């Protein structure tokens, strides 16, 4: 947001100006490209794979809202993602709700859990904050191992996809894809709106200098907690959507490695950028999917890419592109 240098000042000012609904021109262009891709991709690529990418992209965006804009590194986001998945699965299978209601229930579960854990965690900063979120997430994990409604390590199996609003059958991948795409785009715009609201400005102020934000009279803890709850709720939506897509909700989604994976996605894509988590999720999920035939080498390749990312382009893929083009993405 700093004033650009004299050279190329016109470009700089132009690229920074918000032309539409808080989007700068390059961001609007990137958003348009993303929309076109979402609309065209299912005709070329496998829809179930794309839905998985969208679910994780949403999860990574929700995570990025905390780390990228409030500066809080949560290491327990799997708890909200997984619990959202379990509750959405349970309500679709056992209570017989339609998919959109189930996903909303998943989101509410994430919010509630985020509120409980957030209240404790935001009292500390830095590594202590990360460790508290991790510890609480592990408690949630062990709860899920034991709780009868999760079926332990078998998970909730054969979750019906149901019918959207009770009328449009979601059994066809193609139909479900548009629902998932809709959820993703709406959530993405919501996150964008949050970041560009006055509330978002305060979030960024807290990220840059917390004592100063306090001295200016902002109730920092309240802002942090609200950001935490929003992030957890959207993670729950992502988890719920994923369990409807695949028809299963399992312990994988609440395990700490899932928390690590979302950190990885955000890092590879670019922390604190709007489109970074989306790109990061797409890269990681594509790798997991298309490298599966290499067996044991998947994790090794994933590790090498992570190391490359940290060494060669620290701002992540989108962050580096933005730096090269001198724009904010």
């Amino acid at each position, binding site marked *: 947001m700093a004033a650009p240098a004299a050279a190329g000042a016109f470009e700089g000012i132009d690229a920074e100006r918000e032309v539409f609904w808080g989007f700068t021109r390059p961001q609007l262009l990137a958003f348009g490209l993303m929309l076109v891709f979402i609309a065209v991709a299912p005709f070329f690529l496998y829809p179930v794979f794309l839905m998985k990418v969208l679910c994780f992209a949403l999860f990574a965006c929700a995570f990025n809202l905390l780390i990228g804009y409030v500066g809080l590194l949560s290491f327990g986001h799997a708890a909200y993602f997984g619990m959202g998945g379990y509750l959405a699965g349970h309500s679709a299978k056992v209570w017989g709700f339609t998919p959109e209601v189930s996903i909303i229930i998943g989101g509410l579960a994430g919010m509630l859990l985020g509120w409980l854990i957030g209240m404790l965690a935001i009292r500390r900063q830095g590594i202590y904050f990360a460790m508290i979120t991790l510890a609480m997430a592990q408690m949630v994990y062990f709860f899920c191992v034991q709780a009868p409604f999760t079926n332990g*390590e078998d998970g909730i199996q054969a979750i019906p996809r149901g019918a959207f609003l009770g009328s449009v059958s979601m059994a066809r991948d193609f139909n479900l894809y548009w629902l998932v795409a809709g959820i993703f785009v709406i959530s993405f715009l919501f996150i964008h709106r949050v970041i560009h609201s006055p509330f978002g400005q305060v979030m960024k102020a807290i990220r840059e200098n917390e004592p100063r934000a306090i001295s200016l009279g902002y109730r920092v803890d309240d802002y942090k907690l609200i950001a935490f709850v929003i992030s957890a709720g959207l993670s729950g939506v992502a988890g719920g959507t994923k369990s409807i897509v695949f028809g299963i909700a399992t312990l994988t989604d609440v395990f700490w490695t899932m928390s690590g994976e979302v950190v990885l996605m955000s890092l590879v894509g670019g922390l604190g950028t709007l489109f970074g988590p989306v790109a990061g999720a797409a890269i990681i999920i594509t790798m997991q999917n298309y490298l599966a035939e290499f067996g044991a080498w998947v994790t090794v390749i994933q590790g090498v890419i992570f190391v490359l990312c940290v060494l060669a382009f620290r701002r992540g893929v989108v962050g580096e592109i933005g730096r090269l083009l001198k724009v904010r993405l």
Partner: protein
Amino acid sequence: MIDISNSGRRNFLSATGAMALGAATPMTGARAQAAQTIRIGVLTDMSGPFRDISGPTSVVATRTALQDFGNRGFNVEVLVADHQNRPDVGVSLVRQWIDRDGVDVIVDVPSSGVALAVNNVVRERNKVYLNSTAATVELTGGQCSPNTIHWTYDTWMLARSTGAALVRAGGQSWYFITADYAFGHSLEGQTMDFVRSAGGRVVGSVRHPFPGTTDYSSFLLQAQASRAQVVAVANAGVDAINVIKQAGEFGLMRRGQRVAGLLVFANDVNSMGLQVAGGSVLTETFYWDLNDRTRALSQRVVANGSPGGNRPSMGHAGCYSATTHYLKTVADMGVVAAKADGAATIARMKAMPTDDDAFGAGTIRADGRKLHPAYLFQVKTPAESRGAWDFYTLLQTTPAEEAFRPMAAGNCALVRS
């Protein structure tokens, strides 16, 4: 057709690469031939705790079955993928295989969670599912499917063989060390029932947290203090190996207690070593050194390049046996018909009696349960063993018709009428 002449992981990878090339070439030539190609997807664990008991050796065992079917007028391709023990990864792989790559049959699939998830997808798409390495009885119980055969073993069979047979062999009082999650509970519960009905006594049990327990000393001390004749270990994979190793260190076997691993494979014994595992008791449905046919099969699997000379255990043998029977059925009913209707293929497989080098003659029940005998083995001590992989002494054999859960008790919807 598929040349397998090498060993080791690097060679295994290049073999996969060569196979992919081989798969690509005929595509360019005659598309009509695609209808004459059966595609087998081996979904397994290449990187996690089940790598040794399924993994690359399952792939080799499946390919070994293809060698018998070179010239039956149809091509067979094998695709391999690692489900990483994650049901979501497994499901998306299987969906992709079926929707995009034209896979007709899914083989192996260890890890109950993944196995049950795949069961639903295969049923929805009407393909064939031959599960060899998952333990859950749900596959032939509440979640049984007209598209599924559960081939090799299940927890009921293990519980019955180890529980009842060991009581008959003199183990009267029992103590359980159980992993505290659904699989552990069901294995413990089923085994306790058999112990009691055979006239044995359960003197106590202790549950250890799952996952992540590495130090079992307090549980083992309780087991030792109970003075039970048999200490049953109701967990799997790395956990079971750790308990048995530490039981050896505490001298449980030396002091006359029998340690029974309720789910332990020959490959686990290999990684523990006889020094540690010697004297413990376990159940398998296959052992390479049972008879001439099993010895011949094991030799072929090792010659075909199982990694590190890994001998097949029951899971691998199941992959061989299931693939063999499936290909026999395909040859019998025609490739086009077999590709078109998975449930019809399974029905044909159930109607045909099985016979192969792994399990000898056997049958498949209407609920999808493959039947063969179960063997209770005692692991040899280093002094008794005559060489590498000479692991087991046969204690008891449970005949095929008694080894598995009766159909009526399973509550399978296919046979409830």
